[in-house]
């Protein structure tokens, strides 16, 4: 804590507009919460270098601008698991951004966590996915393995390029409720934490740099379009 009257708080977690002495409002807290969340879910230091402050001054904001990258995705995947990556990415995207677009709703966020929307325990209740919060999409889970899923139809509708072998594996995974560890990429399927766990060995697909669709999104889409 400093007592200079100019800046009270902690530089490392301070939002750009606060650090640079601009006008600010309650959104400075959202930024700091995002920075703390970043450390918690990635295991990385938010601003790692000791002399970062001096560099920020020199280069203005460049150093502290939030950007999503592959390294962060990997850190997040190894720490929180594939099925939570999008949830936290959403939270970080909406808190570590410029104040004009920083709109993480704290109430929504706390509710989404405590009601476990993103977790596997979430039920595919009444045959529908429910979302109380517009910002956070729930992650579903097939509690009922008796459910018949027409994979061919999802594949057809989403114009996915899946091999017969993919479909067989997909069916097995759906049956075992492991589907949220699954990713669909234009290059084919990627087996997230199952791959890490060594269940299927290494993925044959190069997933670097492609647009991922989390499998639950595909299933949700297919469901909403009456394919399931």
């Amino acid at each position, binding site marked *: 804590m400093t007592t200079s009257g100019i800046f009270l708080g902690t530089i490392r977690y301070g939002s750009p507009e606060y650090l640079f002495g601009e006008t600010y409002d309650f959104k400075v807290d959202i930024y700091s919460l995002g920075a703390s969340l970043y*450390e918690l879910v990635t295991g990385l230091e938010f601003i790692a270098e000791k002399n970062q402050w001096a560099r920020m001054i020199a280069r203005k904001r460049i150093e502290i601008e939030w950007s999503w990258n592959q390294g962060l995705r990997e850190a997040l995947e190894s720490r*929180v698991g594939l099925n939570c990556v999008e949830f936290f990415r959403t939270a970080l995207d909406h808190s570590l951004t410029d104040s004009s677009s920083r709109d993480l709703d704290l109430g929504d966020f706390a509710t989404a966590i*405590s009601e476990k929307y993103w977790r596997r325990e979430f039920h595919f209740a009444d045959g529908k996915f429910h979302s109380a919060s517009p910002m956070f999409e729930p992650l579903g889970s097939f509690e009922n393995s008796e459910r018949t899923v027409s994979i061919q139809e999802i594949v057809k509708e989403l114009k996915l390029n899946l091999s017969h072998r993919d479909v067989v594996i997909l069916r097995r995974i759906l049956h075992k409720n492991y589907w949220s560890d699954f990713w669909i990429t234009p290059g084919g399927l990627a087996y997230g934490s199952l791959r890490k766990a060594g269940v299927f060995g290494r993925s044959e697909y190069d997933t670097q740099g492609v647009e991922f669709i989390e499998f639950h999104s595909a299933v949700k889409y297919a469901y909403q379009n009456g394919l399931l």
Partner: protein
Amino acid sequence: MAVPLKWSDLCLTREVGSGQAGTVWVAKLKRAYLRLEKDSQVAVKLFRPWVLEQPGQYERIYRELETGRHVVHPNLVRTLGLVADERSLPALVMEYYDGESLQEYLARNREAGDPIDFDKALDIVAGVAGALKALHDNGIIHRDVKPGNIMLTPSGSILMDLGVVATEHSA
């Protein structure tokens, strides 16, 4: 209305934190106060004299007291009162939370390379988000949210240090 706390109601036992602005001690209550029983532990924040000479410092301490008193949330630190210590300087009495800070937890975790206890991590974040929402709903900005100010206790995370709060219109 409870009889306000006095310095003589406190028995300082040990120092638990020291910073630029002052020190934090754990004290035992010599009498019951509000919902705290006799011999309950409280935290007492003592200030360094030079800090109090800074302009606006007394107002800041008073704001910390009032915020912690009026914004009630299970994940937000509660302040109990302001007393004059033996130097006749203000000392802020708060509820005492036994546990480690998120900063300590993360450092320990990083060093050991352990995976985090994910359910615990989520409860921490949800708790802090809730406490912040309570502050914001009351028109108050915390301004110093950081892992070092988040205490992990058996009953959940507590957002600490209301020392630099500001009201929305004054910011």
